[in-house]
């Protein structure tokens, strides 16, 4: 299996632990990740100029097309922007207008022949939970994980179809449990991280981040597990501002957890970069 790995802007600058562990896990699973000259997905520009955002997204899609590879993403917002662009450009008129811009400025064209998949969805749907279980060499028995999906992973359902329930999803819980860890229930499991409004109103964004972190503090949880680097910016970087007393909860990414279950060592998975103390979490790994 071979995919074009779409990093977006946030992962390679702010979530190196996510990128590192994703690459290591993909290699271990026999999936080749190819790096192309991808640029921004377009999402941050949409509020200002939707046409330009669509052109940015379509440029990335056309790059993948010319290399004959489908796209594998790590960021929920990138996944949503690229997938929604595909949906919007099913309309002939809109496709033509975006392609005119791409042709004039970059000599490219998007021809609707590429698939976009988030890493977690790929593991769940294509690689398959049962196959993942077969790869586990070090079951993470006794691990208690709070999962956070992130809004754009399965919403809007008109963009993604219904590979998972838009309000009560289960795919990430199943991926976590494939490692032998337990996905614990927690209040505000589905709350939004607030990242979408960070550049408009920081204090309101942090208020949203608090909704989840507040309900996790004091609970018997080993880590908050994410699949989006922007949720990571909120829950990891802002945690210190929010949790003034008590221990910070480690914020980790799914491939870090799965990598442990594959027997990879914590350094290879970027655990040394965690802002919180991960010794409790890693102490549970059976040597």
């Amino acid at each position, binding site marked *: 299996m071979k995919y074009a790995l779409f*990093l977006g802007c946030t992962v*390679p600058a702010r979530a190196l632990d996510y990128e590192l562990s994703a690459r290591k896990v993909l290699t271990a699973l026999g999936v080749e990740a190819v790096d192309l000259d991808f640029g921004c997905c377009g999402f941050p520009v949409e*509020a*200002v100029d939707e046409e*330009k955002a669509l052109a940015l997204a379509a*440029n990335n899609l056309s790059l993948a097309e010319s290399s004959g590879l489908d796209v594998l993403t790590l960021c929920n917002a990138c996944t949503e922007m690229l997938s929604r662009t595909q949906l919007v450009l099913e309309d002939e008129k809109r496709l033509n207008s975006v392609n005119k811009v791409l042709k004039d*400025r970059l000599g490219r064209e998007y021809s609707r022949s590429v698939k976009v998949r988030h890493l977690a969805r790929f593991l769940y749907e294509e690689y398959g939970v049962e196959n993942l279980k077969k790869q586990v060499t070090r079951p993470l028995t006794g691990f208690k994980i709070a999962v956070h999906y992130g809004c754009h992973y399965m919403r809007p359902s008109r963009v993604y179809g219904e590979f998972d329930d838009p309000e009560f999803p289960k795919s990430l819980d199943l991926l976590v449990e494939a490692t032998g860890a337990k996905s614990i229930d927690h209040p505000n499991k589905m709350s939004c991280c*607030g990242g979408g*409004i960070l550049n*408009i109103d920081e204090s309101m964004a942090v208020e949203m981040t608090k909704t989840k972190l507040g309900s996790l503090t004091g609970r018997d949880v080993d880590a908050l597990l994410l699949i989006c680097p922007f949720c990571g910016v909120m829950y990891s970087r802002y945690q210190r501002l929010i949790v003034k007393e008590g221990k910070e909860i480690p914020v980790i990414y799914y491939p870090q957890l799965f990598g442990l279950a594959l027997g990879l060592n914590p350094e290879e998975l970027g655990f040394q970069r965690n802002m919180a103390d991960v010794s409790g979490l890693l102490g549970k790994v059976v040597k």
Partner: protein
Amino acid sequence: MVEREGIVEATSLDPRFPDRVLKQPGGEALRVCFQCGLCTASCPISVIDSRYSVRRTIKRALLGMKDQVLNDRFIWLCSLCFLCQERCPQDVRPPEVMTVLKNFAVETGILPSGVEKLIEVFKATGRLYPIDDFTADEREELELPKVQGGEIAVRRLLEE
């Protein structure tokens, strides 16, 4: 508590505004809104500050309250969680309506400073988070590949 706002003069309304919104992709569905308020009830922003209401913004747009809508900070505070969109019984897709309104606001010269800064960084570097020397060194230490040159295409597509 909802803050009391000034009384709206009929002469201040722009009767063509609803049509302008309806003609935009994403704005079409506005006309079928029957104001049930499920959007506002689902909104994580409204939970934090009840002055913000999706339902009210949509009603104002339909009434032609152009200035109030385009100057409303709330259109920029939609966190794009898409809960209202999943739940709307009329398939209005409020986040798409908000995008249409934000794009209109920008056309009339309204741009929150946070967004303006972001776009400046974007136009200059082609990235939301440019890879500075420190990050480049960290990447090298972790043996992560150099981030390749997608920035040029981004800058070219962002030119006016």
